[in-house]
Structures are given as C-alpha cells and as structure tokens.
C-alpha cells in the first residue's frame, strides 16, 4: 500500500487516470472490478447519491458506468476499458457513503468484462501510477480524508 498526501493506493490493482477520472481496476479471473480511488472520493466530498448502470450494459471505454453526486460535485464514473457490466454494487446504491469510507473494499462500483484485454495493459500500475497520481495531487492540491458515517 503506497500513500501520497494521505491518499492510499493499494498495489494489487491498476488505475485509470484521465482528466477528472481516478478509478481503480482489479482483475478477478475473467472479470474486472472497478471503483473510485481515495483522491477521487476526497475530491467529490461526502457522496449522497450514486446511480450505477445495470448488468448487461455494454460500454465503450470512457463512457459512464455510474454517476455520483455529492453536495459539491456531480459527475460520471467512466469505464476504464470497454466491456459489459456484469454486476452493479447494490450496496453502494443503498449506502453511497461506502464510496467515501471504504473505496477499495465494499465501495466497489461495478464488476464487468473487458472486451479488449489490450486496454487493461494501458492502465497504470506500480511506480507509473504513483508518479501520475503525484502530479494530479500536487496540481489539484488534494489531501485525502475519509468521511465518517
């Protein structure tokens, strides 16, 4: 687990970092799990609502798989790779605060298939991911906090 500006970055996953997007991707067998990173949930603030695309939704890379609302931010969570939503996390729809309190665990957003495995290679991991996060955190002056219940 690496830590930058108080933001945690588990080493067992890859990251999609483009424009306003900072999501994580974890490969589990034939499918991937996607969620918000620590800096993403910090930037959003206390998340009040989340709407996740249902299972069966086919997405191109960069198309929304969910929308997230806090009092100060409203935006999409974009598909880090092309694929099909296999399962959406009903628990985060019931309790969106999980995106803040447990972004790498119970706060996962979707499980999906990856249509093009080559796109997974394009995601950042390890030192490359940390270097990119360092740039973003400094540019946007993000210091992570975890909202409490």
């Amino acid at each position, binding site marked *: 687990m690496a830590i930058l500006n108080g933001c945690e970055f588990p080493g067992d996953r890859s990251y999609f970092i483009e424009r306003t997007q900072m999501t994580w991707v974890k490969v589990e067998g034939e499918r991937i799990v996607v969620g918000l990173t620590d800096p993403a949930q910090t930037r959003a603030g206390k998340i*009040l609502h989340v709407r996740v695309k249902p299972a069966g939704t086919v997405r191109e890379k960069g198309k929304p798989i969910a929308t997230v609302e806090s009092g100060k931010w*409203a*935006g*999409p969570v974009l598909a880090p790779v092309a694929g099909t939503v296999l399962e959406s996390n009903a628990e985060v729809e019931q309790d969106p605060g999980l995106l803040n309190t447990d972004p790498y665990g119970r706060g996962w957003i979707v499980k999906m298939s990856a249509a093009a495995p080559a796109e997974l290679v394009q995601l950042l991991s390890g030192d490359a991911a940390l270097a990119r996060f360092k740039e973003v955190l400094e540019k946007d002056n993000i210091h992570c906090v975890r909202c409490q219940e």
Partner: protein
Amino acid sequence: MPGVSPSHAMTEATPSTPASDPAGKKILMIMTTGPEEPDKTYAPFYTAALMAAMEIDTTMYFLMHAPELLKKGTAEKVPLKKGGNLKMFIDMARENGVKFVACAESCRDLCEIAPSDLIEGVKLVGSATMADLALEADSVLSF
C-alpha cells in the same frame, strides 16, 4: 418516516432505479437569473452537470441577466453559501459536456457584454434558436 426529521429525510441517500435509461435524451435549461441572486445560480449548473454525466444531451440557454454569469471574471465573484464560488460549478458543467448558448440580444442590449468578454465555449444565438432548441428537447426546465 418515524424518527427521521424532514431535513434528514431530504438528504438521506436513496437508491435510484430509473424506469428507463435517460441516455440520449435532450434537455434544455432556460437560465434567466444572473449574479444579482447568487443562491439561484449554482443549482442549475450542478443539475446540468449531473444530467450530462447521465449522457443526457444538455444545453443551457442564457437570457435576460443570466449571460452575465458567463462574462469572464464574474463567476469567481459569485459567492456560494457553503464557501467557494460559482466558477467551480460552471467548470464542472463544461467538463461533463454541457453546452452553453447565450441570447445575443440579451448580451448586447441588456448585459452589454461583448462576445470577446464571454468565457470560452459559449455560443451566441438569436432568440429564434431558443424555440428550435425547446422544440427539439425532450424536456425544458426553467430557472
């Protein structure tokens, strides 16, 4: 809801299961309020940003004093109750793909804003365009 105050109930997270996916629909937002009423300015941009994130083709049409919000340097001076200013909401809406269209007559005759004084990405149009946009939209919201 027993034991829950109305204010709590309003902010309570609720699962939202849409009856149908709104992606691809069109919404036109008519914006008439300018910086003279700061409290009425941020919610439309927030809502528009959210709708665009939902893949709804979202256009905001600014007329009367509303184009003043799009004048360079103005949004930074429109304060929000919880701190910060309007610019972050305008930026968020633009990042999510909301289109900004301003009434040329309002800009010229009422707000006295030169086209070069508008922030980037604002399209100036005549009043008839509002009719076109309204008729093309699946829904029209007025603020």
